[in-house]
């Protein structure tokens, strides 16, 4: 009798372990793919940094279809904008920048050309502008909006860029953010148009 009880107890424990393993095995955390190429917009109100991006060793996508994309953005001012003080606001208009960022999707390769406008309130700013990234196969172009703080050191901007050439019919949404350059970039490429609220 005792040996039977021990056997049953052992079997119950083994089954419990097996069930626990099976439950855990159902998790399928989605893999985050990551960078190797391409740029995006990200402004800095008045700062003119020149740092080039550091390559991040993250797997590239297959460069086709809908994708989650990530990478970095490092911008450099190529043409100063005009500044006008209106009350407590400094209005920066028409600043031009180049983005040497890298992304993990070949469709986003190329140097980004950015225009930046900003309303600066002390150390923070509301920002908006345009960006165009072009490579041999096509281009992405559109508008972006966002904000910066810490005198332009930190940023959060996002935008919707329309594809052309080989990318016609696709849209690239990006979100660039971070406390300092190089900024982090995340976004998606999808077939379709930007949402129209």
């Amino acid at each position, binding site marked *: 009798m005792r040996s039977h009880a021990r056997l049953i107890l052992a079997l119950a424990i083994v089954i419990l372990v097996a069930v626990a393993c099976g439950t855990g095995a159902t998790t399928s955390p989605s893999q985050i793919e990551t960078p190797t190429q391409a740029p995006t917009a990200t402004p800095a109100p008045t700062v003119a940094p020149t740092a080039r991006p550091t390559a991040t060793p993250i797997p590239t996508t297959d460069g086709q279809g809908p994708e989650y994309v990530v990478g970095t953005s490092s911008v450099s001012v190529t043409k100063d904008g005009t500044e006008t003080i209106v009350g407590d606001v400094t209005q920066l208009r028409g600043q031009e920048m180049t983005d040497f960022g890298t992304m993990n999707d070949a469709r986003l390769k190329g140097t980004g050309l950015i225009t930046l406008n900003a309303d600066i309130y002390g150390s923070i700013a509301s920002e908006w502008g345009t960006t165009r990234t072009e490579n041999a196969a096509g281009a992405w172009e559109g*508008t972006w909006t966002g904000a910066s703080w810490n005198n332009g050191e930190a940023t959060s901007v996002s935008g919707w860029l329309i594809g052309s050439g080989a990318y016609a019919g696709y849209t690239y949404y990006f979100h660039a953010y971070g406390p300092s350059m190089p900024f982090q970039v995340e976004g998606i490429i999808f077939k379709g148009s930007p949402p129209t609220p």
Partner: protein
Amino acid sequence: MPELDQFEGRLAAAVHAFADRADTRVDPLAVAERAIGRRRFASLVWLGRPLPVTASILLVLGLLLALLAWSVGVGAPWDHRTSIVLLPAPTAAPTTGPSATLMPTTDGAGAEHVTGSGTFSIVDSGTSTQVGDTTQLRGFVAQSTDTMNDPRVSGTGTLRLSIDTHDQVGTEWGTYRLVNADGAWEGPLAGAAWSGGDASAVTGYLVGSGANAGWTYYIDVRSSGFATELKGIIFPGPPPGP
């Protein structure tokens, strides 16, 4: 009788020789087994040491429980998140845990960079329709509680979203209204989700009313797993024009 003396001498020597060769060792375990009856599982050998059955069972139990704890920890499903972007179960009301990384509080006046965290619970999961390769979710509504480092942007929010999903990624857009005792912030939000809705980023400009009239709150909502980070700026002016 000298012959008898010799005989007795040889006999005594023979008896002593026999007694010296006899095996007088005693096996106490064998004696005990005979006394109480043979119990085949009376002890088990672990690393060369005999252990009582009870101790052996406890040892096995301990090892199995350690294995159980490890197996649960390795692959448990509780890291699934309840993104505002997921196609939710109709009656589900999950919440996201805030990340406790608040910056020092602001003075609650003037232009500020703000940061904090939020929790969401689903009020209406909306309806989804398949259109080609796109799943269109409409009428999604969630309640939020924003805990920020500036009292002007802490409060209770109502998020109304539409979501188009394309495989593992999706676009999101809608409106957000944040209310507290002194006023409100309201405006459009838009952004994207990925990892099957497990992560998202949406941004927007919310226009102030009440005590916040004349001010705009740029909000950046970034969610990953169960954490929702909020950051942005409050500034005295309108959102950027198109």
